[in-house]
């Protein structure tokens, strides 16, 4: 049953001006940008640090955008085109086994972590529990063939880094999934607006105007995710030029600090899990193996960009719990590797 909304009051002139403000500011910024470009005719009018921050932010955005688009397309397929009974049949009934299977779904859908957010949203809209979608969201960036192959190419079997990453990722994702499955009100994990959107989705019959619903879903998902991605990229870019990397590198040889420093670096750089192992090669000679494992595990699950994207779907308290548990578990994993390796 749908609630009936009262007719909206007529907009006052002040409110009408308010509505026009944002598009006008956007238009002015874009036109201003073109004007500056035409007037400057080359050169870089920004200080180096700011210019590098902008370049880094744009770089992360352009690298992530196709994965977001792919994730939204897969989400549309899951939500609108795939019969719900197929998903039900494919997944086991036992909750822990069901989460275990979902955490391996990344093997079939090897997109990077930001592309998994729209897909996880699609799975929830299709009826999966939020705890199950969180398990998938955390596990898929690590338990997928591209990530495993690139980690092997970078480190081989050295110091058990590959094994620790794969097994650690699986265990941590399922630990967090189990933790949230104990939540008495699964709907309370989600933001109210996304929960409402899921309820609206369930009210549609299959086969009802699928094409127009697909287009509408694309518009809604991109409307939610792209602003979050932009903010995440901007923060990641600016932090990278704001925090000197040598501060982190100075901590590399200490068993404790090497783990913590690389986890902090992973959170900041927001690098794609498919290639982060190559990036980590640069630090292989400076940091202990446990720090590298912590970077590869924590960074694939949680970073600035991912937190911004997760805010579109999960409540702030839930995200804080996810970050805390993944962080602690990655810390323990990293210290254990340092102890053994």
């Amino acid at each position, binding site marked *: 049953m749908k609630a009936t909304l009262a007719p909206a009051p007529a907009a006052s002139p002040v409110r009408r001006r308010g509505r026009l403000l944002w598009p006008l500011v956007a238009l002015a910024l874009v036109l201003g940008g073109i004007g500056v470009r035409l007037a400057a005719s080359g050169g870089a009018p920004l200080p180096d640090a700011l210019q590098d921050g902008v370049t880094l932010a744009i770089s992360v*955005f352009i690298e992530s955008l196709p994965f977001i688009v792919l994730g939204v397309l897969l989400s549309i397929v899951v939500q609108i085109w795939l019969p719900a009974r197929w998903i039900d049949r494919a997944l086991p009934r036992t909750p822990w086994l069901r989460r275990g299977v979902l955490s391996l779904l990344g093997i079939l859908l090897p997109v990077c972590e930001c592309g998994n957010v729209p897909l996880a949203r699609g799975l929830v809209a299709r009826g999966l529990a939020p705890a199950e979608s969180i398990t998938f969201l955390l596990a898929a960036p690590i338990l997928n063939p591209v990530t495993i192959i690139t980690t092997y190419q970078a480190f081989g079997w050295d110091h058990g880094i590959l094994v620790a990453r794969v097994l650690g990722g699986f265990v941590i994702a399922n630990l967090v999934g189990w933790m949230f499955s104990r939540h008495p009100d699964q709907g309370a994990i989600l933001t109210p607006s996304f929960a409402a959107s899921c309820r609206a989705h369930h009210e549609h019959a299959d086969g009802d105007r699928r094409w127009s619903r697909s287009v509408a879903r694309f518009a809604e998902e991109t409307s939610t995710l792209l602003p979050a991605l932009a903010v995440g990229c901007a923060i990641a870019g600016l932090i990278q030029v704001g925090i000197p990397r040598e501060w982190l590198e100075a901590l590399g040889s200490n068993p404790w600090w090497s783990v913590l420093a690389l986890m902090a670096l992973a959170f900041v750089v927001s690098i794609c899990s498919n290639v982060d192992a190559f990036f980590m090669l640069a630090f292989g000679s400076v940091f202990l193996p446990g720090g590298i494992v912590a970077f590869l595990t924590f960074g694939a699950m949680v970073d600035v960009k991912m937190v911004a994207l997760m805010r579109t779907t999960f409540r702030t308290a839930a995200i804080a719990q996810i970050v805390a548990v993944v962080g602690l578990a990655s810390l323990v994993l990293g210290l254990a590797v340092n102890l053994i390796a």
Partner: protein
Amino acid sequence: MRDAFLKYWRGILLTALGAGATIWLALSGQLGLYIHPRYFAFTVVMAAIAVAFVVVTLLIPRQRDHDHEEPVEPRRTRRRRGRLAGVASGVLVLLTAVLLALPPTTLTGSLASGRDLNAAGITGGEDALQLAQADPAGFTIKDWAVLIADGASSRTLESVEPQLVGFVIADPDQPESTFAVARYVITCCAVDAQPVGVTVRLPGWQERFASGSWVQVQGRFVPQDDGWVLEASSAEPVDQPAEPYVY
């Protein structure tokens, strides 16, 4: 109604901006300033699909079912969420405006001074073995750095007079006489950029170039301490090349 309208068209507008900028960078040959060439095809195809969705959205009537969603959040929360979405959209528009205002560019040399030189991609091993048997005429700065790091034989290094183009990083130990001519090596996108370079000896270089500027250096390798440096016979300032990164 208004929220649903804004939510619908904001996504379309932002997708058009992001995908349009990506395609423009690809067509103008500048996509390589931000991502590795191996991702060009995937990135452009997904951007084209996104543009196709935008066009279809403009052609078919908007589906209005979600306009009747029940208002589950208090008005204050909705206002705050709306403001946050507005700020986030503003950031994206700002990034687009900056992209339009500033010429797309590589990372500057000043970022490299805070990062370890030759920490990445200098793996030696098979790479160095293949390089030792290849024609050095086409070697990049990264190739020379790999060979030097791998302890290439003096016969290989002394028999050549390479011409290298890269940006300048001052040597912190001997800033008056030596600098590194460097490039960024990237594996995915500019975020993972790490500087690789070759040490150049050219006393008084600071009177001719600024740190971070692009130069073309030619010379011969000579042993120094436990490595090799390029004894420059000529060095000229040059413009940044169209493909500033190495892979």
